[in-house]
């Protein structure tokens, strides 16, 4: 019995890790809040958010709340499901029962959406997916707005291939094994540096965490020595920040002796970029609110929209980071 529970817990915890989008994270704190009330000709939108598991997610929530404000003609009913897939489906059902005009979902898991999406379609309520997608048939939802992780990796790789023209030894700090951002960011990057003078000498998972990034980087430094590594590619900022600690502890200067490329552009990462400890960051933009709001209006007006809308990610070098930092929303 004891063993079963422990195994179950382990599986649950690993499952939660695998679900996270841009950054890492597990279960979130409580964040459910709803706004009732109905305005005259406001568009009532139900938004089922995953939870509040990371800084990226908090910024995403803020962006959605701003874009779906009363000033913009919306009445937003917000629900955060704390990474509980069943609770999220229940929330969507309650949106359907309340007869909202449109539903926006950031799905926690890909599977299990067919029934509730069918119910929404039967009720004539359009569904817009945000950030992550679902495995259900495309006919059951209007559109998806999100990010292309592979493109992020590709942008980082292109910059690396242009910048490092001499022989370069690179180590990679991978995200959580098997997660979509980790897989796609690796694929995009590897394709972009194919044929360049960059050699990937090692790659290991740091689980998207600072501690993981630091521990793995320490191991790499012991294995190859400070002089054996020229470049670090981290699948997110947190691991890059951990790597900075490890490089400094090894007596080298991050950003100079060992260059660092990373993805996400969260505040601490941008600060490190501005300080010259990271050399290049490709953004994983959480500010999807405006795009989502525009799509909701378009769908309700009967306009035809693409099934996939990809939000362009920016990329930053040191000067761009210094310029952008004061106005960063996250």
């Amino acid at each position: 019995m004891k063993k079963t529970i422990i195994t179950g817990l382990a599986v649950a915890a690993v499952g939660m890790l695998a679900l996270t989008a841009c950054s890492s994270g597990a279960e979130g704190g409580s964040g459910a809040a709803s706004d009732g009330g109905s305005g005259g000709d406001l568009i009532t939108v139900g938004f089922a958010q995953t939870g509040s598991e990371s800084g990226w997610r908090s910024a995403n929530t803020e962006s959605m709340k701003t874009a779906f404000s009363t000033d913009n003609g919306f009445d937003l009913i917000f629900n955060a499901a704390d990474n509980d897939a069943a609770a999220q489906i229940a929330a969507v059902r309650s949106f359907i029962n309340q007869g909202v005009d449109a539903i926006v979902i950031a799905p926690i898991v890909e599977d299990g959406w067919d029934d509730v999406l069918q119910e929404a379609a039967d009720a004539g309520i359009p569904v817009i997916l945000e950030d992550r997608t679902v495995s259900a048939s495309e006919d059951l939802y209007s559109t998806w707005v999100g990010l292309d992780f592979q493109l992020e990796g590709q942008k980082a790789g292109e910059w690396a291939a242009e910048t490092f023209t001499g022989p370069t030894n690179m180590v990679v700090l991978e995200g959580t094994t098997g997660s979509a951002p980790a897989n796609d960011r690796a694929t995009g990057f590897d394709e972009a540096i194919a044929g360049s003078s960059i050699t990937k000498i090692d790659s290991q998972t740091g689980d998207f965490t600072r501690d993981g990034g630091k521990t793995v980087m320490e191991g790499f430094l012991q294995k190859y020595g400070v002089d054996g590594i020229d470049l670090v590619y981290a699948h997110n900022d947190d691991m890059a920040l951990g790597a900075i600690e490890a490089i400094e502890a090894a007596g080298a200067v991050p950003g100079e002796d060992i260059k660092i490329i990373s993805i996400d552009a969260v505040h601490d990462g941008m600060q490190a970029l501005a300080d010259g400890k990271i050399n290049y960051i490709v953004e994983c933009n959480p500010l999807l609110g405006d795009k989502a709001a525009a799509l909701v209006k378009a769908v309700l007006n009967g306009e035809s929209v693409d099934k996939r809308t990809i939000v362009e990610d920016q990329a930053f070098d040191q000067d761009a980071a210094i310029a952008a930092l004061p106005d960063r929303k996250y």
Partner: protein
Amino acid sequence: MRNIVRHRLFWPALALATLITVNSAARPQFLRVTMRDGELYGALIDILRNSAPLMLVALGMTIVIATRGIDLSVGAVMAVSGAVALTIIDGSSDPNGVGTVLIAVVTAIAVAMVLGVWNGLLVSVFGIQPIIATLVLMLAGRGAALLVTDGFITTVNSEPFAFIASGYLTVLPFAFFISVAAIASIAIVERRTALGMLTEAVGINPEASRLAGVRSRGIIWGAYVLSAVLAGIAGIIYASNIKAADANAAGLLIELYAILAVVLGGTSLQGGTFSLAGTVLGVLIIQTLNSTILFMGIPSAQSPVFFAVVVVVVVVIQSQKVRSWIRALGASGRNRRSAATTEVAS
């Protein structure tokens, strides 16, 4: 020779020695320890330093398991303690002051202690099954830590705080001395006084020991408080290592690794007899195994399998049943005068 082989720490020690040998054979720089600015630096030193959080948690877990209990909340307690300490330092006007850091550390440990008192209360007074009693905090604690940090990763620049995990005391990392201090003080209290024997008595038969006049309630309660305090210190070391409170990742799954370390060290989950030295070896095996995955360059997708295979081998060779089968094989072999080969094979 036979006595050495029969010692219960022989197999864990052999496993650790084998891991180190394999690593140094694959990459000789694994053993290299260099002196830099009067501080030792090398892969082995990293293992000693990075094992500190798991060491503390596993020591606490050993005592809890000895009382027939289990503490699943240690990871969550780590997250809470780190979050509390960092929030205090972040909010203070003097983050670089030793006083600020001391206040933060003491407050964080005090909060951890309260959580331990709660666990102990549920288990020893209300008689709730330990796995359920501590599951409550395991789930709620991390949420509380996220509330403290507002869901963000709190980062601080505080030299005295960073010293806890990254600093050196003379030639060795300070975190290593924290481990040693914890091992020494627990060993002295448990083994030089009657407390260790009473703890084992409670674990072997709570009812009999109660009838014999052992105050089992206090002993069990104390075990959970100790476990939580050690987890609190582990949380501070974790946060200090990355200079940030990462409430989502701090101590994630560490309860399972701590239980694994205890089992690798030869302590039974049934409670009763426990081995602190075994737990220390278990922690070092796990930490060395993590380094091995890095040094051998095992791909991330395969590393959990590699980890599992090594653990299974170590656990199987420790199994009494397997060993008695091998002995039986050896005995029948001896009759055919071929004892030497089977002995070596075992």
